[in-house]
């Protein structure tokens, strides 16, 4: 197996991009069957991870606060509440 990054370490976008590249490479059709199968396995792994992420997605909010010494610090913030009405 080629040197692949751990799927969980990829961002959603990186994983999507890699998946798209794998599909394109496979679609180009000039690949050894072994490589194809290896890529396919990687693609399935990426797909699974992406689906899980979509299913488990939770909003992440942080707030940039000024510390006492004046430097900025990221603090975890509260995500939006569950109500679906928008106060426009």
């Amino acid at each position, binding site marked *: 197996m080629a040197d692949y990054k751990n799927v969980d370490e990829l961002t959603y976008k990186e994983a999507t991009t890699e998946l798209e590249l*794998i599909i394109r490479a496979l679609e180009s059709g000039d690949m050894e069957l072994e490589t194809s199968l290896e890529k*396919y396995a990687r693609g399935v792994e990426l797909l699974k991870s992406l689906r899980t992420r979509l299913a488990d997605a939770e909003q992440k*909010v942080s707030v940039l606060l000024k510390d006492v010494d004046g430097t900025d610090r990221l603090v975890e913030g509260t*995500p939006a509440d569950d109500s679906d009405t928008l106060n426009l």
Partner: protein
Amino acid sequence: MAGWDLTGSSSSASGAEKAEALTVSQAAEMAAGALNTIPRITVLGEVTGFRGPNARSGHCYFQIKDESSALDCIVWRGVYDKRLFDLRDGLQVLFTGTFDLYKPTGKMSFKASSFTLAGEGLLRQQVAQLAEKLRLEGLMEPERKRHIPAFCMRVAVVTSLSGSVINDVKRTLRRRNPLVELVCVGSKVQGQGAPAELIEGLRRAASVVPAPDCILLVRGGGSFEDLMTFNDEALARAVAASPIPVVTGIGHEPDNSICDMVSDRRCSTPTAAAESVAPEFSELVAALDQREQRLQNVMVSQVGNAASDTDAASERIRRAMRTYLDRLQLVVDNASTRPCLTDPTNIIDRRRIELSQTLDRFVAACDRVQERYAADLDRLAPRLLSSTSSFAARRHALDLASSGLRGAAAQLLTEPQSTLARDAAALDALSPLKVLARGYSIAYDGDNRVVTQVSSFTPGDELRVRMADGDVFGTVTSVSTHA
């Protein structure tokens, strides 16, 4: 009017009224005079009923009003031609001029000799001028606007953290795409110091690590004055110069600030801005479904292709092998019908026959050659014999010539021998050695030269004397000459 008393008032009173009564013209004149005493003033009012300059005269007739009053207003053509902006209804304008009474109608008007925008109108004009300035600098060129990723994973929001806007943004993105990570950067969005805080907020947002994909600069709806913060020149320049692309969503739909104009993407509201930075969740799901389908399709077709390739290859190799074997079979079959294999002794027999024929020819040829040499020999023998018959006579002639030659040679030598003996005796008599033998000698000097005169010597010279049987060496002691 005389004699009528319709009101029942006294005639004296009526007489007094009569005496004090003025004509309309007089009254109008009086009013006009009173109006003329009012100095040049400046009036702030909202333009209303403005229908543009009069088609014929070019003068403008309209009203200016506030909450409770209205005034007719005239702007002469000459004044209106020098205007900096077009008058229209609703504008708050400062008119400077004087009152005037138009006597034929008795209408009082305010004649403006100059007018300038006031309040919001003035602000709007200043904003328009700033916008024009920045546009001329190229800050609004479409090619300056940076690309904002279709799916921003990390988004910084610069706005007030206490208002409802930040919650709207959060909720919009939570509903639309919870994968988007939000970094909230608080700032005042209106009032004194707001532009400076927003500029600082943009700077802080841009220096967050890891860097956000874009910055949302948002603010909810408000009055024109409230939104003036976003028409600040320094803030507009900070938006244009931000190292991270900026998406603006300021106020409501018709509001358009200078920040909107110089940003990389302008959205009409904070919610619209939030929606523009990431695709709908369902789109992601659809995209993922599509990718899964493509992955399956391509793999099925790849494996299918590989299988059919393998089948085709196996069929080809089978056929190729068959053909090859058939050809070999043919070669073997052909070989097996060759005479060398079907009748091997045949070759030997044929060779044997050829050999015996050759032998017969050889023997016959030998016999013929032998016979020819024998015949030649028989013919040559008598010729040889006959060729020796003259040999005896020639030998006798040779013997005779040989003895004659010997006698002639002896005779040829006798005469020269006697001459030679005579000459030798004479030569011997003349030899100096013979003279030496008779008692003479030869003198030589040191240089081996023969000396014939005594004057050649001086005492002390080397001297050699040759005699018949040898030499005498000596030194000259004295020299004397014979007289």
